[in-house]
């Protein structure tokens, strides 16, 4: 069978890739995608733990559902923000949206 560690490593990998995307991309949409990837890795992690440690106690899946809800609303709000920023400043580059500084 598949060891737990594989899942965990894979989840960690996806998470870090997503993190890199969130940190390194200029386009806000790409950043959003990176964040989705991170959440995805977390979900994978949760499900793996649920399956391997407490398969008869549903908490893990509930947690995943909550994370999914969070992801959905985060995507909705984030995209709405991107659109309105695009309307006002006609850019979706995260670096150029830097008026809020010293």
């Amino acid at each position, binding site marked *: 069978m598949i060891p737990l560690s594989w899942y965990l490593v894979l989840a960690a990998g996806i998470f870090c890739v997503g*993190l890199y995307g*969130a*940190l390194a991309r200029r386009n806000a949409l790409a950043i959003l995608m990176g964040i989705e990837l991170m959440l995805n890795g977390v979900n994978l992690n949760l499900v793996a733990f649920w399956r391997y440690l407490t398969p008869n106690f549903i908490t893990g899946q509930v947690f995943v559902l909550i994370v999914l809800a969070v992801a959905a609303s985060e995507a909705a709000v984030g995209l709405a923000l991107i659109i309105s920023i695009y309307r006002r400043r006609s850019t979706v580059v995260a*670096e150029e*949206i*830097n*008026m*809020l*500084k*010293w």
Partner: protein
Amino acid sequence: MQPELLAWLIPLPPILAFFLIILWAYRNNRLSHTIALGSMLISWGLAMALFWVAIRAEDLGHHPIVSSIPWLPTGETSLNFGILIDPLSAVTLFFVAWTCLAIFLYSVGYHNFGKRRDPDDQPGLPPKAGGVEPMYARFFAFISLFAFGMLTLVVSDNLLLLFIGWEIMGLCSYLLIGFWYGKPSARDAMVKAFITTRIGDVLMLLGLAYLYSVTGTLNFRAILFDEQVLHTLAETPSIIGGLSTAGLIGILLFLGTVGKSAQWPLHVWLPDAMEGPTPVSAMIHAATMVSAGVYLVLRFFPLLTAGWHEGASLTPSMLVIAGIGAFTALFAATIAVTQVDIKRVLAYSTISQLGYMVAAVGIGAFVAGAFHLITHAFFKALLFLGSGSVIHGMEHGVRHTHEHVDAQDMFNMGGLRRKMPITFWTFLIGGFALSGFPLVTAGFWSKDEILADAYGHGYLLVFIILALAALLTAFYTMRQISLTFLGQPRTDAAKHAHESVWTMTLPLVVLAFFAVGIGWVGIPEQFPLLGGVLPNWLHEFVGGTLIEHPQALDFNPIPLLVSVGVALGGLLSGWLVYRRVSAGVPDPLQRWLGPIYTVLKNKYYFDELYHFLFVRPAYWFAETFTYRWIDRGLIDGFLHGVGRTAMRIGSFLRNAIDLPIINGLADRFGEGVKWLGRTFRVVQTGRVQEYLIIGLVFTGLLLSYLLLAQP
């Protein structure tokens, strides 16, 4: 639904209506009066159902409808909070429900509902040009609260709850008498009414407390239906020599009645209470408030008459009651003869009729008193509403012909019977009932029964006084009727008066029916011809309230003849005198009586007397003593002293401690923060991702520390 629940529910709809209107509905007139009327209708329906249950009940007196819940735990005992429906409260409920309903409906028309709101009416003044009342909704809220108070009082099973209802009504009468607070007279009247009744209430509260301290309970059944409680009360001498405890408590409670139902010497407020809108006058003087006073006396009849049995000499308390009642009856009647304001006449007649009832109780005629209470409630409500309708018509006439005459002065009226027939006929019925027109009207039977009791038990003095009062009553009633309706119009306003809307006339008709019909349930058995045609149901039923049933005394022609005589004589003389009074002619009595007339017209100068005795000293006390010496001198001086010292201490602290030390530190701290900000602000690049990186770095550091520090 079992009767207890009915009784519990009866008072609730009006209070709900009150809150609904005050909190939400007050913007919408139609909604407001719909709520008020609807709630009253519900209460009425419940009351009728309960009344039906009550009269079907077997020997209701000894097995009344009671239920109670613990309310205030006082020490080991606890004040309960419950309802008691025995014959007395049942009949009271009956007429209260009917009259309240009639008055509610009447108010709709009286306040010109449906007319446009006149822009130059402002709240606090009666509408000038016949627009709808500016504070329409508020009126219905108050009157609903009033009805709640009365219903609570009637269904309550203990003195405390009764007192609560009593006080609510006091408040409402205050608010409603001063409903048009724009008028100074109304303001004075409301204050007067409130304070005068307050005197009685305080004494009554004393009696209540005394009763509780002696018996340890306030429940009616526990006190009034318990032989040896009454016996001990009657036997034990009270703190005042010569009076038994029962006597003293009785007198104290009775003083409450004196205040509430305007007996001499606390009668002064009631005529002035005419400043309020007419439905209020009807509400106060006929349906609820003054009846409440008599109701209290009737309720405490066993206590008042403790240690007395039929035929025995009166106890001191009864003497007092009988005396005050009889005296008030005559006294108010004499004043009423000379009044010209249509509503004031009725006010004084109310006082005198109440005197009747009180006197009846005083001489131990329980059933007669109750009987007269009921009949009087109906026909007096009828009369008031009728007078209101008359005034309404007159005001319309005054508006129509712009002549400045007092729309309430009977000498400005005359000949209205053609203008407003319904009002006339109903008013006529009411007036005859009031003056005890023989055989048909209700007033005759009740009044006759009182007289018969007075005569039959040999209290001749009372009998004579009441007979005189009855004579006067008939006289001034006829005077009023003929001045108002008969003869020729004395002013153009009277010419142009017109009949009121149906919402005002319908209640008149309903009440007129009762003013006639209600009397027939109380015809004594051995009455010639009529006796026994209808069984004397009332005597059986209401008499059952007492422990031992009062036996109906046997028939005696003398009081009957007397009462018939005085009624017819008074009516006849009144008609003869006032048949044709032409415009501008002074009251014929003025010629005959001369100075006495002036004295009567000024109500024996009681207002002036009270003003001299109480009001001025009170003003002096408030002005000089309380305000100048206590308030200005002592309290303010002390406060100023405190203030000055506090300021000195404060200035010292500020200059010595606050400025140098604390502010200095604070400024230096602020500078430091500024410097920090200036130094580290370069971190704020405005780029989200860099923030994220920084956050990550610190989180990583923290985590690694946490993980690596612990082995």
